């Protein structure tokens, strides 16, 4: 083996732990999540014969006796091996109320050994006479499904197989997604407006003062997120510090206290504060590398300060602006603790729904689909950025 080859092997050996680490903690969970969003085998595994018997069914007349018999046997068996809960949960998400129908039926079917099964099952619960029940089982019986993505886009599949929008009072994810993108964009712009002058000040201040200023940016950055969010509650609430000052100064009346928290305003203010360092730090590192002489040269060639800034300084900071904006935007669309605490009813973001489906409803397929959509959004953003600015010019500091 040549010396070069051996060197390359040794180099590979050095990065191998990191590669493995990334593979195990990042790529694998991400892949699992994406698979979950289209693959839900719970019902297909637990009720295989039922799903098979329904394959030929026309969808309108009562399903064949074979389907009733298979459902009766398999529901009772699912109850025995304790998979019934997940089956019932999955079916219930397609048609509300079926969780109870399935668990009750399985319990009653335990002692039944003989048909005719249609009569037995319809005797246990009227729902078995309703084609919608069987549609729900057939729908959830598909191993690979677009159901979660449709759901995440406020759509649903009708019994005849066509796709329709959800009724108005059930549309939630698209409006939330739109709101999340708008809020994240607003926060990114605010961070840029607030962070740019700060980064400039730090980058071009004498070293001692720059260190103090940098510490002022970093200390909040190192402070617990919950502490910072709670601090904003103390400041912004209607009986809080800011409103108290305004009332004392006579600027607003006692009854005119401003609602600045538990709404969108609170979410934007708190998230801008939390994410500001992610804008300041890349900008600072880019700005520090820009020699002061460039601006001097521009003004000695007759440029006004505004011209010098716009044509000489600003273009050189673009890699930092791009990096900071991407960082803030991407973090903002996935943020959920801050909006959960200070968002009230109007300040909730799509990430709060992802958390809800992960933790409470246990609808991991839907959570994965929502995550998949966010991921796709970020990738698109990245590609657009690459087209416009060029990823090689990205500077994360």
């Amino acid at each position: 083996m040549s010396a070069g080859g051996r060197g390359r092997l040794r180099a590979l050996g050095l990065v191998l732990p990191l590669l493995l680490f990334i593979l195990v903690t990042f790529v694998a969970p991400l892949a699992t999540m994406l698979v979950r969003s289209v693959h839900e085998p719970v019902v297909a595994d637990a009720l295989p014969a039922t799903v098979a018997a329904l394959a030929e069914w026309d969808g309108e007349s009562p399903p064949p006796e074979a389907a009733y018999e298979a459902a009766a046997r398999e529901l009772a068996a699912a109850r025995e091996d304790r998979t019934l809960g997940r089956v019932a949960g999955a079916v219930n998400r397609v048609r509300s109320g079926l969780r109870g129908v399935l668990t009750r039926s399985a319990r009653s079917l335990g002692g039944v050994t003989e048909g005719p099964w249609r009569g037995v099952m319809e005797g246990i619960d009227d729902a078995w006479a309703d084609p919608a029940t069987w549609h729900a089982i057939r729908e959830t019986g598909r191993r690979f499904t677009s159901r979660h993505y449709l759901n995440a886009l406020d759509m649903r599949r009708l019994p005849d197989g066509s796709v329709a929008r959800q009724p108005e009072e059930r549309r939630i994810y698209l409006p939330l997604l739109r709101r999340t993108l708008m809020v994240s964009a607003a926060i990114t712009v605010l961070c840029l407006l607030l962070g740019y002058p700060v980064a400039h000040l730090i980058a071009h201040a004498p070293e001692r003062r720059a260190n103090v200023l940098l510490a002022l940016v970093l200390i909040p950055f190192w402070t617990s997120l919950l502490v910072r969010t709670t601090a904003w509650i103390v400041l912004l609430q209607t009986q809080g510090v800011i409103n108290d000052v305004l009332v004392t100064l006579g600027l607003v009346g006692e009854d005119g206290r401003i609602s600045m928290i538990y709404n969108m305003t609170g979410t934007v203010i708190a998230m801008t504060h939390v994410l500001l360092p992610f804008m300041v730090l890349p900008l600072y590192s880019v700005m520090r590398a820009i020699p002061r002489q460039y601006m001097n040269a521009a003004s000695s060639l007759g440029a006004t300060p505004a011209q010098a800034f716009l044509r000489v300084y600003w273009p050189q900071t673009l890699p930092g602006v791009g990096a900071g904006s991407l960082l803030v935007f991407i973090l903002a669309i996935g943020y959920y603790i801050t909006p959960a605490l200070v968002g009230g009813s109007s300040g909730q973001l799509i990430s709060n729904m992802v958390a809800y489906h992960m933790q409470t409803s246990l609808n991991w397929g839907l959570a994965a689909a929502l995550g998949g959509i966010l991921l796709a959004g970020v990738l698109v953003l990245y590609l657009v950025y690459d087209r416009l600015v060029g990823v090689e010019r990205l500077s994360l500091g």
Partner: protein
Amino acid sequence: MTTATHRFIPPALALAVVAATSPLDTAAAQAVTAVGWGGAYGRAVQMGVNKPFTAETGIRVTVEDYNGGLAQIRAQVEADNIQWDVVDLEMADAVRGCDEGLLEPIDIATLPPGPDGTPAAEDFVAEGLSECGVGLIYWSTVYAYNAENMEGAKPTTIADFFDLETFPGRRGMRRIPQANLEFALMADGVPLDSIYAALDTPEGLDRAFRKLETIKDQVVWWEAGAQPPQMLADGEVVMSTAFNGRIFNAQMLEAQPLVIVWDGQLLDVNVLGIVAGTPRMEVAKRYLTFATTAEAQARIGSRISYSPARRSGSALVTTHVVTGLDMASHMPANPDNAARSVRYDWLWWADNQDELMVRFSAWLAR
């Protein structure tokens, strides 16, 4: 606790333990992970259950806090990497976890009788037992107000919570449909015993949402149990729904002038369950058995106002361990407080919560 202390466990006690279950030496080397809700309730469980349990058996108790739900248990069972042994669950989660095979079925006959000899199956309140869950305590969702910020007439009924004319000001409510829909129907005049029958019809649901709509722009939605007492103390809201124990804690230990309105309270039971397939099954069962005795439940109940789920436990609760005040008037299951109460129907919610959470979120966002 060090291993040295284990050797000095009084012989009689050691004998009793040996007789009761497994050999002492294996038990002493073991630990059990008990998962609870933290906060004041967590401290009550620590003092009332965990410490006496370790003192009696020598088994260490590792405490973890969580915020309810089955997500972590499901993740552990699916990955076959079980860290949690005994979990303090809401009844709805215990039943769902049982159906999904995440929790171990528990034979009630193996639990000891009450101190008066009543068999366990009769000692526990009926709604405190399920296939995989053994009742620990009663808690309730109530609403409370800050007496200092309430001039003139005081609210006394659940209808007053929705009465913006007599009691203007902002209200705190939890950002989930559960409890809020029930309160709305109670306030709208639906009899307490037919709340869920009404919610089961589309008209009843519309009625509940319409009633909520009347106060929607005055509601501050809360997420964590610690928020309502805080918002009441700060004057951020004039009244708020809350978990009764959190309000109790603020009344007792922080001397906040908060007042609970018991009218229309929504009673629920928390149970203990064992994570299916835990390698520490034996100690987990011993912990569960110990924690659900009337004595242990009463020790929780004399630290925070959650009523024992065993009938025989209530008689054992007398005064608060810190302030020495009489506990009875603070207990949700006290007949005076429970005169007009509704039992949380977790079966109904198991069927409807997915659907209603979507509708509730869409309603909130409008």
